[in-house]
């Protein structure tokens, strides 16, 4: 199979959604529930995608007053933008 028949991995599509809704810095990081609402995805699926993206350093997890929040990293932003330029 060549690249033309290859579709975008789920977590990369999810990364795009996270970028486009504006979660691109720590002050705009979103909670799991907020991401679930924006992306219309079940919490489990959201968590699964986030864990993959954290392991590749495209997403960062932060804790703010005991609440877990997530935002796209600079490398994540570049990854997303590479699709459109």
């Amino acid at each position, binding site marked *: 199979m060549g*690249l033309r028949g290859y579709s975008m*991995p789920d977590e990369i599509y999810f990364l*795009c959604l996270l970028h486009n809704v504006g979660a691109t810095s720590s002050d705009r990081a979103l909670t799991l529930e907020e991401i679930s609402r924006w992306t219309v995805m079940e919490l489990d699926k959201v968590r699964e995608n986030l864990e993959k993206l954290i392991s590749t350093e495209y997403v960062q997890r932060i804790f703010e007053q005991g609440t877990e929040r997530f935002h796209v990293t*600079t*490398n994540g*932003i570049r990854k997303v933008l*590479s699709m*459109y330029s």
Partner: protein
Amino acid sequence: MKMNVCMLTWEFPPRIVGGIARHCYGLARALARDNHEIHVVTLDFPGAPMFEEIDGAKIHRVKIELGHPNFITWTFIFNHFLEKEVATLCREVEVDIIHIHDWLTASSGIATKNFLKKPLVSTVHSTEVGRVQELRSPDSYLIDGMEWWMTYEAKKIILCSNSMKWEICNHFHLPQDKIAVIPNAVDAHEYDRHVDRETVRKRYSIEPYDKLVLFVGRLVPQKGVEHLIKAIPRIVQQHNEAKFLIAGDGWSRSYLESLAVSTGYRDRIRFLGFISDSERIDLMMSADVLVVPSVYEPFGIVALEGMAAGVPVVASNVGGLSEIVEHDRTGVLVYPENPESIAWGVNRVLSDYGYSQWIIENAKKRIRDVYSWEAVGRKTVKIYEQACKG
């Protein structure tokens, strides 16, 4: 004549996606050095100041306060914020010309043109139909329509190569007298520095006797990296000491990594992800060959950068690359989407040191003579003047 220019772009360093950021950076500084007043309005990026001056060019970064999961919707949202920034700017500056780069800033540029009643110049860096090869989705149709709209509304259209000129004229049925071809450029001074090849190579576990084959670019289908990876067994067959570094990121990275495994030479291939400009220059100056295996390439600024860095360039014979690289003189041109041909080109350079040095010298001379930002700046100002007169 001194011009006040408002340039709109969605990418500007450190927000580097592809060639547009480098183009806008080089052009804005060249125009400012030539005493024009340049205001670049662009999107923010983590860590970058909201306003800064770079070599006289004024950079205004805009925070996007709203978002939406759909990319096209998000694009229209950020254009609204760009437009708002331009409106603020225009209270203090009498803008003579609005210059937009690609469809991504088309709607704010066109709105600005109409409320200021000033001419619009559009640079088209690539087209949707070229990037995806065939329009298949509603988003692609809309982007194609936006590209037509930006060329229709513009007084003058700047393209970076003759191949783009034919592509645009045919696809959008544009009159040729509206179009100017101004190639991209490279800042040759950035490469006037000493790089300790051994130290740089050591950082990537490349031994002095290894042959370093380098790719730099986005990991997306149009860049043709899969064909380079498929060429690797043929290259290793002739050059057992060959090692491969793939710098850049993109949505097809995971596919390319699995393809690398299938070659049987995964241990010789390293994916570096995004690298800084300084690291890119170090790597280019330390490599034995730079491969640009693009399937579609309106210009191919990375080939110019390689030529300036003094590394032999092996490039696909497509689009702007065929205009930048003169086969067997300033580089080697190979058939696109053809691993056998890519391997042939790489092996040719790696096998003959005298030949590769000859190519390097010819390429450096070509860069000095033709591809400077000062020349691009002067040509662009002429287009601005024509747009203001007409």
